[in-house]
């Protein structure tokens, strides 16, 4: 049995346990809905407006910076495996790659992308 099949079996086991449990509890528990019970909980006061209102732009900026660095990290993994064999050349090339990203990081910091308090 190959390692991929073992991973696949664990994937199915995980999903079965998680969602099987939820389905079983749907059957086991009582079901008595009422109007007030089905209100979303907002400290018991009358609900006003929709929950999904405006979102601060800061969250969007953080997501953008995350995108840059996540791709960078994904690129670094194959490099990390081989840097021990290729020694200095790979180390220097990795340094240049990181340097470009550090410039981008400093630019984002300078523009105030991670500034949460005004």
């Amino acid at each position, binding site marked *: *049995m190959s*390692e*991929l099949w*073992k*991973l696949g*079996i*664990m*994937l199915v*086991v*995980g*999903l079965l*346990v*998680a*969602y099987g*449990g*939820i389905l*079983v*509890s*749907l059957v*086991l*528990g*009582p*079901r008595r*809905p009422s109007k007030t*019970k*089905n*209100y*979303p*909980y*907002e400290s018991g006061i009358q609900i006003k407006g929709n*929950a*999904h*209102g405006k979102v601060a732009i*800061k*969250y969007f900026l*953080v*997501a953008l*910076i*995350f995108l840059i*660095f*996540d791709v960078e*990290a994904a690129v*670094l*993994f194959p490099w*990390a*495996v081989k*840097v*021990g*064999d290729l020694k*200095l050349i790979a*180390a220097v090339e*990795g*340094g240049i790659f*990181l340097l470009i990203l*550090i410039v981008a*990081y400093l630019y984002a*910091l300078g523009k105030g992308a*991670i500034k*949460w*308090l005004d």
Partner: protein
Amino acid sequence: MVELLSNPYVIWAIKTLIIFGAVMTAAAYMVWVERRVAAWIQDRIGPNVVGPFGLLQPIADVLKLAFKEEVIPDRVDRLLHFLAPGILFAAPIIAMAVIPYGPGLWISNPDFGLLWLLAATSIAGYGVILGGLSSGSKYSVLGGLRSTSQIVSYEIPMVIAAIGPAIGAGSLSLVDIVEAQKAMWFAVPQFIGFMVFLITTYAETNRLPFDLPEAESELVGGYHTEFSSLRFAWFFAGEYANMVIASSAVSVLFMGGWYGPLPGINIFPGVHWMILKVAFFLFLFVWIRWTLPRFRFDQLMYFSWKVLLPLALLNLFIATAFKVIW
């Protein structure tokens, strides 16, 4: 009988059952440990009624929650509300498939094990995010938003710190990473990376001092306000199962897995070292929860982007230099 036990499929099934059972039991009993240790730190007694020393408390809790009514409020996105707790609970089961707990004691050893581990632990974050955003309650939506940017921010230092062991071992297989630490743990040359990884696991599992998505004093229950019955239990148990996986990941990546602290004491490499290390890190989770106050949200963001990220990059430099010069 002997033939049956030498069948590789049967051996694999037994190993899988042992690991699955051990991780799930550890997760269930972490609830008990947390309540007892919290009581001990606050000079109380804690749960001691159900069974000897209250040891049956987790079983009683899960059974009680399974028989409770599943309240699904009107404004909820029903599909995501159903999916969210399952994602959080399935992620640690998927992640445990690649973690080596002892010599020969692992479910699977693919050559991309580290990537699988990081991917599965990040998927757990989706449970929290979807749970908050699908609820249709303002508190939950705020919790979901916070957790999105928190998980996204702490993912970067965590992944970059995890590249350190990959450089040291020259492989992404977790078994190779443990074997490479036979002479010296990666926590010694890459101490900075070890600390960064340890701190980010607290943010990834939504534990204090980074439990902003939950923040019961300001957001009621945060992302799980609108969840009841077993869906709430999955959020609750999933958090502890994720803690077990995070502790195992720290032990495997930086603390030498099943190898002892010094090459001289390596006479008994085995699963007991791994159990000791995981137990220590689990206790640390509880200890820190009852010692440190919660971060403010802007401090949380500054800490990740301006402190942890540069430190993680510094660790990358140290790990590369160590590997190239050695």
